[in-house]
């Protein structure tokens, strides 16, 4: 169900995004950092649904809040001549790897559990015969 929603969202988004107008080059840097922040939020959302502690309010505010905050920080950094966006990228990408690790571990555990169960069933069958 969640997977279907994600794929559907991505496909429709890509179809509409291709036909969207271009933004000016000056703002593309800000959009890039917002994309990284949003990507992190989405992975975080998926990881927390798997861990069953998903909170809609936290997710939505995180999605928009992180994106806006990172844009503001990038802007501030440009005014102060400090590359703050690098720090934002390090944090977001680090968290993305964390979340991806959680997702990966969840599915690997599920898979190995299933296999163990199947093995036991087969053993029982052979013993029963």
């Amino acid at each position, binding site marked *: 169900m*969640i997977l279907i929603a994600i794929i559907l969202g991505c496909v429709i988004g890509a179809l509409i995004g291709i036909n969207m107008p271009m933004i000016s080059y000056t703002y593309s840097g800000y959009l890039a950092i917002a994309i990284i922040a949003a990507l992190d939020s989405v992975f975080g959302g998926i990881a927390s649904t798997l861990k069953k502690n998903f909170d809609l309010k936290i997710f939505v505010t995180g999605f928009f809040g992180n994106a806006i905050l990172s844009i503001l920080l990038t802007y501030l950094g440009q005014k102060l001549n400090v590359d703050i966006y690098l720090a934002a990228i390090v944090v977001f990408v680090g968290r993305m790897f964390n979340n991806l690790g959680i997702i990966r571990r969840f599915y690997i555990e599920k898979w190995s559990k299933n296999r163990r169960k199947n093995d036991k069933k087969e053993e029982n069958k052979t013993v029963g015969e």
Partner: protein
Amino acid sequence: MKKKQVAITLGIMCFLLTIAICVQLKTMSSANSTVSQTLSDNELRDEVLRMKERYDNAFADLGNAQKELEKVRQEATQDNGTAEAKEQELKENNMLLGITDVTGEGVEVFLEDAATTDNNLNASWQIIHFDDLQWVINELRNAGAEAIEVNGQRIINTTAITCEGNIIKVNGEKIGSPFTIKAIGSQNLLYGALERAGSWLDEIRNAGNTAEVKKLDNITIVKYSGIIDSEYLKEDK
């Protein structure tokens, strides 16, 4: 029920995210056709793109300001006979100076370098030179052309057409083959002057280059985009 809500929210977020990514990809692919290796190159290119954008914005602002000025002038002279006459005169003078877009009947001349190099002919003849443009423009002027444009550059009273190695500069802007010369004036006179036997277009064709003349009923000629100023001119009393 809760799972459905979660799925819909995640879907919407992914939707927004993909739109943003697509827009970003599009912008970057149009901005960076070549990816350079060094950081300083990237920074320089960044700077150039920003400057270009700023220039475009400033140019658009200038256009808007001129339109506004026009509007203010019109409002100021709305119910005043002499002012209206002055306004009319000002408009006409601007048109003659070349700082307004003008439209009217006229001809369009298309000149292009020879496509193949024929060894029997002199290679230097087989390209359009700056003096070819000067000759054609002189012939147009001679036939009473009232406004002339070459590849988007309006010919005004301070225009110079110069040869700068392998490019031609008009109004200080680089242009290259193919050339499109637009001229407003009497269609038949202009056409006749350009296509008469022994005209300069004949010479251009003899050298193997392309030269075409089209009569058009409605030609728009752009205004001069620079600034005309004078430093030494004073009125003689």
